[in-house]
């Protein structure tokens, strides 16, 4: 029966792909049903992720001598608290926890990146060679172009972003697209079967 998952995956994939190219009532209905199933499965995947996370930390606590067991305990306790608040208490409580605990902590973590970036810029952006000099000039132009003090640098920043930077990003996107096509074909042809592993 190992062929069954492969057959299902190929069939669903081909039907979904055809819905992008053809407008047929049967195809549309099948595609919509498959997408609905995918959404439900995605929700279950989130639930499975939560269960797996709690199980991993429970095991770490069970092995008492393992380092980091205290942090695992904190994770489990806070997860259960937030879960209880969301399920048992009014939504305002969950919003309060979100806005007064989760949001500031995440913002603080992200803000720390600015200090690390400043240190890295001080150490790395040095004109050691032609390449590093070009990178240094591009960084200075973009940084100063963000400021409203010089319109010339703002235009220069736009040029850097829309000409050389965009060229590189476009190349990356084209490569990614080709990779996605190849991966999709391998899945549709049954060459890759991640669902059966």
């Amino acid at each position: 029966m190992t062929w069954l998952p492969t057959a299902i995956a190929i069939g669903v994939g081909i039907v979904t792909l055809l819905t992008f190219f053809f407008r047929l009532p049967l195809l549309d209905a099948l595609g919509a049903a498959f997408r609905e199933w995918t959404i439900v499965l995605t929700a279950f995947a989130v639930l499975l992720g939560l269960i797996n996370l709690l199980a991993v930390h429970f095991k770490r606590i069970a092995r008492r001598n393992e380092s980091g067991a205290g942090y695992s305990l904190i994770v489990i306790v806070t997860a259960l608290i937030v879960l209880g608040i969301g399920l048992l208490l009014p939504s305002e409580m969950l919003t309060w926890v979100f806005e007064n605990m989760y949001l500031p902590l995440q913002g603080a973590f992200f803000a720390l990146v600015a200090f690390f970036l400043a240190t890295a810029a001080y150490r790395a952006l040095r004109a050691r060679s032609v390449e590093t000099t070009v990178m240094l000039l591009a960084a200075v132009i973009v940084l100063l172009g963000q400021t409203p003090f010089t319109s010339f640098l703002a235009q220069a920043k736009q040029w850097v972003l829309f000409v050389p930077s965009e060229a590189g990003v476009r190349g990356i996107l084209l490569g990614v697209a080709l990779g996605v096509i190849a991966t999709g074909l391998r899945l549709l042809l049954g060459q890759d079967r991640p669902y059966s592993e």
Partner: protein
Amino acid sequence: MIKCTVCGIQNREGSKFCSNCGARIAQASGLICPMCSTPNKVESVFCEKCGARLVPLTVAPAPEKTPPATPIKGLSLPAKPVEPPATKPEAPAPEPTPSEPTVPSDWLARLRTAAPSEEETTAPQIEAESLEEQAEVADWIARLRANSSFPETETEEADTDAPFADKPAPVSDLEETPDWLRPASAAPATPLPAPEPARADEMPAWLNRLRAESAPIEESAPSVSTNEPMPDWLRSLEQPTIVEPTPAETPAPRAEQPAAFLPPLEAASPPVPISEAEMPDWLRELKPKETETVAPQETLADETLDTNLESPAPSLLTPTEPTPTWVGEVFRASTMVDEDLPDWLRTPVAAAAAEPGIALAQEAAPALEQAQVPDWIAALKPPDHPTPELEGEALETVGPLAGLRGVLPLAVAIVEPHAPSRLPLPGVRSESAHLFESVLASSMAEAGAPATARARRAWTMRPVIYLLLLLATIVPFFLPDFTSSSLPVSRVPARTFFELVEKLPANAVVLVAFDYDVSVAGEMDLIANAIVRHLIQRRAKVIAVSTVETGAQLAERVLTQATRDMPNFRYGVDYAILYVPGQEAGLTQLATTGFAANARDWSQRQPLDKLPAMVGIQTLRNIDLIVLLPGSDDRLQLWMEQVRPFKTLPVAGGVSAAVEPRASVYYDAGQLDTMFSGVLGAAQYEVLAKQHDPLAKKVGAAVTNANSQNVAQLVLVGLIILGNLAYWVARAQGKAK
């Protein structure tokens, strides 16, 4: 079809044994693999089935004495004659002048004294035969030289009409005959009891036939029919190339011509004297003189042999050439035949070795000094000890390849580590690699610096940087607005976005995608707040959606703050918040089928059809504008790939500054109708909104944050310049020192 050489039955191609008599079917011309018995082509070096080496590895001869050679391949079966090299003499040996004094070589003298019994058995015809052999000796030696990588000479084209087994091979034939064939040709002539025959199924069919016919053939050799089936290579021996037919070839049947160094064949071939009148001129010239000292017991054959051997040798046997000790090698080779042969042939070979002639030859062989062996012949001998490059390879212990190393090259190829490939790098790549190495080396050097120096540098620089950055971000919040008046808003992307919203009709429905998470909320909230405020001012109906788990919560937060000053803009009536699960599938479903009928909103968990804000809005066709607020590249890509191709409605983007390089690609391609980015774009949007609404009391939070960000960026640029100055000063000081 293959015809069985024993019973004549036709067998299928590839058959190894006869389907009728069970005899092993000899392959006409090919090399039998000693490992798997697969027939291979004559020129094959390795077996095409198992990869076993068919040609043994030998020591290469000295390069200065090795002429360019045509390789002879094959070991266990006679190979096809290879084209002789250019050094082969075209004519027989130069006719010696009778008056010329001929001095026998030392090696020949020793050879003659070492083999007295053979001289007695030599037939008179050997006189002419030996002369012809002189020429043939030159031929095979020339080929032997040319093929110096092969330890044994190939089968010479015999100048006889009789089949190969019908006559005892002459000296050169014995030398050129492969070891496995020598007993077959010598055994019938031995007076000793026949050796115990090997089993018929273990022997090639042709050999069985030869064994069966050997005795009668000796008695009536001419009656052997050449039309009988036999292998090709034997048939090729049947049709020799007679370079120069001489009358000496005709007097006696070939079967009655014994080889000079073969066992006595008196019974089969009694000596027949040849009168001098019957001799051709060239042979008469070669006849020894009467004055020459001849041992009394020597026969005419011995005299002929002496004369032939003492006569001037062909060009290859001139006194300047190394002494041809090949004769000794012949007999020495006979002692090695047992280890070179398959098991089924060892018994007859052992019997043949016990014969007087062979035994005598074995005794004569040590008389040849090793120093007289030319290098090119010594190079043909298999090495006694494995060469250094073969020491690590497997040693064959059984079969005809026993004692050889490196027989299975496949295993060697697997075990042998591959040399790292060194591809030439282009100059640019090489320079980049050197630059990368120098950067790594500088980091490693800094990491390897003394702990005190690193600690001092950390105390001096890192806190300074952190402190400067902290002051640059905090102080502007306590300063009056100093950037809003200087912000350029005339030709900026935010103006395009602002004008697009301004053009929306009254009660337009705008889908705002809050696709960012908490980590970038500090930046994205400012953008979303500026846009949503403008939409609310325009009395547009806002449908906030998010594919991120925390996006709906953030949307609620932004909309709550934005509507705080506008109590008439109520949730459920003027705006709604939805969560779109399923990532790509959810967005595709939204783009194709619209909002699900049984879906509920995020804030009040009410069915969508019960929300006044969603009345008449089932699909994206009912949307006038889509505003994307992606906090990461993949979120923007998600919308561009899953939603944008289905709809032609305008799509605008307010993206994070980190997403701007990716968004610019879509904007440049027309997939995004308009976009702005970052805190600066949000501040510009707020300035534009304030300019459009004179009643607005103050600008939003984006302008204040832009002030802080501008100062922080200036500080960052100053730090970069400072770091470069320090670097160049240190570099100048280093050069000065």
